């Protein structure tokens, strides 16, 4: 081994030490070897005098460990034990009121974060539609009524976004919790993204449009609707777990679970397949939720009308020789997004054919 080889090997084996310190050490060894050569020894002999390179490396690291150990004992070790204790306490705290494993809870929190981020991204088209519509109203109708309508438009879009946010968030969260609560056998390997995609499944959306028309007739006799629902659910529960491939059934499952989850949590029941549908209280909640969702539909309808108006206005503008391709894309995209949200709402509202 010659001098450069030796020094390179040493450098490589001492990577754990920081660069400047390492350079310092290497320089010392370099000058040592050079002086030995000056004293009449050969390069090889000078290096042989160091003995086994691995032992030398161990010695050097040993000399450093003394310093680093001291640091560890005072601060790092204390910090580590503190965090360990904190985590243990957290685990026990969670374990006291939930049956979900602590690892799953961590995963769940992470997934909820992902959902929140996705929903935050969804806010962008809403904002664009809101500002576009508002500015159009402003410029077409003029000040006074125009600005009033623009403010109204902004408020409507804002409410619509909040509504979509709540619906999507609650649905997805309940679905995730269901996944974790059920046995691992029932786990379909769906990620949070799959669930999110399912919420915007256009195929199932088409089906629900049909359901919407047939469900409308049902909606007229609202007095019996809530009680019917309770009975119908009873029969549904039996085959709910069997038939998971059907997209609409899936939606039902999801919806069911949201309420049964709150119930089971209250009664500390582990078995999520026994739905307590005979409970009168839940029926009232169902009916109220239905009315709530009906109200939520209104801004969406208004949004579609607004977007259509915007499209019409833009066509008129383009006839006057003023085309905005970007604006067209925005409006059409907005229409698609609103359509997706409306179909999602249909699914939740009229989930029965």
């Amino acid at each position, binding site marked *: 081994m010659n001098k450069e080889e030796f020094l390179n090997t040493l450098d490589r084996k001492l990577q754990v030490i920081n660069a400047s*310190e390492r350079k*310092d*050490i290497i*320089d*010392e*060894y370099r*000058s*040592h070897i*050079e*002086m*030995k050569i*000056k004293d009449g020894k050969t390069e090889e002999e000078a290096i042989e*005098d*160091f*003995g086994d390179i691995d*032992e*030398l490396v161990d*010695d*050097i690291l*040993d*000399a*450093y460990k*003394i*310093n680093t150990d001291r640091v560890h004992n005072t601060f790092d070790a204390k910090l580590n034990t503190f965090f360990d204790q904190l985590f243990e306490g957290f685990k026990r705290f969670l374990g006291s009121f939930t049956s979900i494993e602590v690892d799953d809870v961590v995963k769940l929190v992470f997934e909820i974060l992902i959902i929140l981020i996705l929903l935050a991204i969804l806010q962008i088209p809403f904002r664009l539609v809101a500002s576009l519509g508002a500015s159009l109203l402003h410029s077409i109708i003029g000040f006074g009524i125009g600005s009033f309508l623009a403010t109204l438009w902004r408020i409507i879009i804002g409410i619509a976004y909040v509504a979509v946010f709540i619906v999507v968030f609650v649905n997805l969260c309940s679905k995730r919790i269901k996944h974790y609560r059920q046995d691992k056998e029932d786990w379909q390997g769906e990620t949070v993204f799959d669930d999110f995609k399912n919420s915007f499944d256009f195929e199932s959306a088409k089906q629900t449009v049909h359901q919407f028309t047939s469900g409308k007739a049902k909606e007229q006799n609202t007095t019996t609707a809530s009680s019917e629902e309770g009975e119908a659910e009873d029969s549904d529960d039996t085959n709910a777990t069997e038939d998971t491939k059907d997209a609409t059934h899936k939606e039902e499952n999801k919806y069911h679970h949201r309420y049964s989850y709150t119930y089971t949590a209250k009664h500390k029941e582990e078995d999520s397949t026994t739905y307590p549908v005979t409970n009168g209280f839940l029926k009232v909640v169902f009916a109220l939720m239905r009315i709530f969702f009906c109200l939520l539909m209104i801004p969406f309808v208004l949004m579609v009308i607004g977007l259509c108006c915007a499209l019409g206005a833009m066509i008129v503008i383009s006839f006057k020789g003023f085309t905005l391709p970007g604006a067209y894309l925005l409006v059409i995209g907005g229409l698609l997004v609103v359509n997706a949200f409306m179909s999602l709402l249909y699914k939740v509202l009229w989930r029965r054919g």
Partner: protein
Amino acid sequence: MNTQFKKGVLELIVLLSVYRKDMYGYELVSEVSKVVDVNEGTIYPLLKRLTNEHYFEAYLAESTEGPPRKYYKITSLGKERTNVLLKEWVTFHEQVNTFIKENGI
């Protein structure tokens, strides 16, 4: 010689050598080698540690031959440390010798 003996006493020898006069690495290695047969490579990590613990200060000085040399100078903290280690060594040495004599060897 027993490597454990060497390791224990090496620090004291290095401290005492630098106490007498400032030295550069290679000079120190030759000095120490006169007393204990030690692997030349192990002196440098020790010098590094003693510097990190503020017993030594390092500075560069021009030499008549070749590049500037890195000299080590003892600090007041290093002097204290030397005195402590020296006292410890003396007592330890006496105790061991007394023990050997008592056992009639």
